[in-house]
């Protein structure tokens, strides 16, 4: 569907040109970002609620920029940032009456909108939600529906809107497209959206079974040679720009107090991975367990943020 109501930018984006010589130069201008964290170490998360006063609940979430991005910002060598870090704003409106045309519902009717800002990714996004954004919305709705106690809010609707201000890359920008390409960045975005939405819902005082948080784990292979010895390794909270190829990734929405998963999204080939010796799990299970661990980590930040928001409203009272 073409957007006829606005004057849109060029559909291909407006990136500065990158010459092949730059990639081969030794100035380090076009170097792949390297993961500085341990395989099980998460990026830091900034999460705060209640930033949007007109909404009944809101939150803002930001991932820590990777070390190479931070270095590139302080000492720019190229116009092109080496990687990007997630920034999400979430608003919750409601509970509010259903529109007149809607049918009777004894439960809370949840609607989720995920929208990338036009400038969020390296490729420009349109103003109308495209298929991947709608897909994210559906995933998010599944994740939240399992956590919200919907029968406490009959005849009402809840609108959850997430704006992606900065998205994660699907791969390093300098890489040529290859067979392992998929929208890996979307999975990080979903995990961030789940955590942010959960904080905003708690800020709006909607009844929930638990705080649900999102986590990502992936099987990555950093070896450039295609030899048989390059077995993929399990890493938590991967930044796709930091890895040569991602074979498989998994997002879960997880409720730690109940040890329940409300949403799981697994992509790619998870058949072969190098686990630790004595680990009897299949790599598939290990991937899901890794994602759950990442979600547990995000939950510590989430519960702190919710406690802070309550403490703030008590201080105002």
């Amino acid at each position, binding site marked *: 569907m073409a957007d006829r109501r606005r004057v849109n930018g060029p559909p291909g984006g407006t990136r500065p040109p990158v010459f092949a010589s730059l990639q081969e130069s030794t100035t380090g201008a076009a170097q792949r970002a390297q993961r500085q964290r341990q395989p099980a170490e998460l990026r830091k998360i900034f999460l705060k609620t209640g930033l949007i006063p007109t909404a009944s609940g809101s939150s803002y979430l930001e991932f820590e920029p990777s070390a190479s991005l931070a270095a590139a910002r302080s000492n720019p060598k190229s116009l092109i940032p080496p990687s990007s870090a997630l920034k999400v704003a979430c608003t919750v409106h409601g509970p509010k*009456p*259903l529109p007149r045309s809607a049918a009777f519902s004894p439960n809370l009717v949840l609607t989720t909108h995920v929208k990338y800002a036009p400038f969020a990714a390296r490729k420009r996004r349109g103003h109308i939600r495209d298929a991947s954004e709608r897909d994210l919305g559906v995933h998010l709705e599944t994740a939240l529906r399992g956590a919200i106690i919907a029968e406490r809010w*009959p*005849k009402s609707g809840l609108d959850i809107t997430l704006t992606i201000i900065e998205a994660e890359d699907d791969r390093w920008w300098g890489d040529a497209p290859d067979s392992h390409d998929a929208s890996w960045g979307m999975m990080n975005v979903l995990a961030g959206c789940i955590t942010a939405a959960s904080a905003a819902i*708690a800020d709006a005082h909607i009844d929930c079974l638990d705080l649900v948080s999102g986590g990502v784990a992936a099987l990555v292979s950093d070896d450039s040679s295609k030899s048989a010895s390059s077995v993929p390794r399990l890493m938590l909270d991967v930044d796709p720009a930091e890895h040569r190829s991602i074979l498989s990734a998994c997002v879960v929405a997880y409720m730690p107090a109940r040890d329940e998963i409300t949403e799981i999204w697994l992509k790619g080939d998870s058949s072969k991975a190098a686990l630790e010796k004595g680990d009897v799990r299949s790599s598939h299970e290990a991937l899901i367990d890794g994602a759950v661990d990442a979600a547990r980590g995000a939950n510590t930040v989430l519960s702190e943020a919710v406690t802070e928001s309550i403490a703030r409203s008590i201080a105002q009272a």
Partner: protein
Amino acid sequence: MPDKLITEPVSKLPDFFGEQNRCLCNKELYHFFNPFSLYCNMASLPQIAIPGQRLGPLSKYSAGPGTHVQDSFIHASIAGPVVTDAAQPKIQPKPTLRVSRVISAQDLQPQNAGASDGAKFKPRYNTLPAVESNVLARVTRVQKRQATVSILVVLDESEHLTSSQTASDNDNVASILTSAANPENHSGTDELRFQALIRKEDVRAVEKDRVVMDEMFRVGDIVRGSVISLGDQSFYYITTARNDLGVVMARSEAGNMMFPISWKEMRDPVTGTGEPRKVARPF
């Protein structure tokens, strides 16, 4: 740049609830809860709960609003201060645990209730109308058989239970009505409010067949009503068939605020003309 970045490496996750309790004690807000501690004398209860947090066993407490039960334990389902309502003999043998939804100054600082900070503090009412809850609503349409109203606020049940002085209720109403009378507050927001109907037979308890809707409500009146049914897809049903229910605030045709002079009449203080209304008994 964010002013603070929080992280935990996955390898050493903190004890979830232990962390909560520790961080509470570290913060300065501890003193806020001292007046409150008489409710929370059970040492095991946290003072602030976050969704999913385990509060207490079902054998000791019964679950109130803002909580849910899982594996015979009461868990919080919203974030807020934990309140224990004392057991009532015969009706409720166990003390009720609830998580307060509206953090009111009155709930937390009883000695400062009614202080000047009431103006700056604006509680967010997002409680839904339920059967038997009292609501304040503005009349949007008067028809022969029914009046359409849009619900401005659902009066909090717990406020009625905990407030010892009846005056606070009156203050509450006044603050709500002044905000509702603010024209920029309700321009086109009726779509965002819950709609309700007052049917002709629900207006008053006596002489139901003599009711003339035009003499009961006018468009713009503020009505206190009690919800009798969740109704259909679009409307709740409200009754005013009690002495304390009915019009609480109305303007005359001249546009002046009127005062009640009887159960069925209000008078304009400027022009002196009376207008018929189903008047709520003033407190």
